[in-house]
């Protein structure tokens, strides 16, 4: 039964490799957003480290939204999504495969380079660890929610501002608790509470959003 999902994963991996350097676009975008924030604020400002968790989360969120726009659009246009809807394999499982691929190829590189941004924003040891842990457990939820937004807007000629408008309100709790973990660690408190909460939100998204994505995929005109 999981064969279909694995086949989708392999397909996405091959597509990512064929697109060449396109996989690096979210990374560059992430770096530019962080840099723009630092340049807009005064460099070396003492409050930079305090604002850093929010900056990293918002940059990640924007990069994921921009990166996810194409995830379902190309498939909807080429007819691949319609084929998935008609296939005998369970659609939520196939959607889960697509969402996992999106996390692996868009969110994971961002999470891996995020500590560089945290150090550049002058965050200290404990807080860096807490924020990185929060990114690991929170990014699946963020990736799933942006994936749902991309699936909802896939049939439109252009998603434009609609995708962030749908996705941002849903992802704000993740940003709040994700930055909360780093702030707690910075003040010498235990970051476990927000981290557990983020992990539970991620689990909820992993269990529920593939079904919502399947319902969104069926909206395609056939």
């Amino acid at each position, binding site marked *: 039964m999981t064969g279909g999902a694995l086949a989708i994963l392999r397909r996405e991996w091959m597509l990512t490799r064929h697109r060449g350097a396109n996989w690096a676009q979210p990374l560059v975008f992430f770096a530019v957003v962080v840099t723009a924030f630092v340049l807009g604020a005064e460099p070396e400002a003492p409050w930079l480290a305090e604002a850093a968790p929010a900056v990293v989360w918002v940059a990640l969120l924007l990069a994921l939204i921009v990166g996810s726009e194409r995830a379902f659009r190309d498939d909807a246009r080429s007819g691949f999504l319609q084929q998935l809807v008609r296939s005998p394999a369970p659609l939520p499982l196939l959607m889960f495969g697509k969402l996992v691929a999106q996390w692996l190829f868009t969110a994971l590189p961002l999470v891996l380079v995020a500590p560089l941004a945290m150090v550049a924003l002058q965050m200290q040891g404990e807080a860096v660890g807490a924020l990185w842990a929060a990114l690991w457990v929170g990014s699946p939820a963020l990736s799933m929610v942006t994936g*749902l937004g991309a699936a*909802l*807007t896939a*049939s*439109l000629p252009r998603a434009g501002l*609609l995708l962030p*408008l*749908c996705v*941002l*309100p*849903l992802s*704000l*709790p993740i940003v709040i608790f994700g930055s909360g973990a780093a702030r707690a660690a910075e003040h010498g408190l235990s970051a476990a509470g927000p981290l557990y909460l983020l992990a539970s939100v991620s689990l909820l998204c992993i269990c*529920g*959003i593939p079904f*919502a994505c399947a*319902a*969104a995929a069926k*909206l395609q*005109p056939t």
Partner: protein
Amino acid sequence: MNWTWFHKLSSPPHFHRFARRWTPWMECAAAALVVYGLIGGLILAPPDYQQGEVYRIIYVHVPAAWLSLALYSGMAVAGLIVLIWRVKLAECALISIAPVGASFTALALATGMLWGKPTWGAYWVWDARLTSELVLLFLYLGVIALHGAMSEPRAAARAAALLAVVGWVNVPIVRYSVDWWNSLHQTSSITLLGKPTLDASMLWPLFGMALGLTLFSAANVMRRMQAENVRRNARQRWVREQLEAPHV
């Protein structure tokens, strides 16, 4: 009990006749209740011993905040019905509730800000209750925008339904934010169980306003649903017959 009348409501012609007959009555009742609530709350009720006259804004603020949550829940229920049973009238209900709910959310935020300036000393604080109510407004706007962007009405309604149902997670967050976090916003004075901490002379006008505005929004949603229902069935014969019939 015979439920036939209820099932009949999901048929567009029946709903049209039902709404046409009952909406004016609901509007009359709403107007009477709101007039009672405003007179009772703004003139007859005594000033608060702590807040003075400024507390009177609750007669608009509290019903608007209740309705912002209740209408979102109603929209999510309509969304579930759209997604599971694909009832066409539920699609009309979903997209008719969204603008009304968004307006009440904006009204709750605006009146809250007007009250916050003299009481807290600031129009806006980044507090759990205020922030989650703002997120609720964004959710409403997202549902409206997603529905507006799609040209095919049934697909648009289903997409908006999905977003509304997923976004419902925010409703308990708004409702219980003042209990879960140390919020500047005061906790509820009126609870389902237990004695309200509000005097009867202040309480009854508040209930009057709440019921009046609920009836008003129900009537407004019905009118919007009626219009949407007619627009979608414009080519059906019953629409022509209904519109040409003398008005009751």
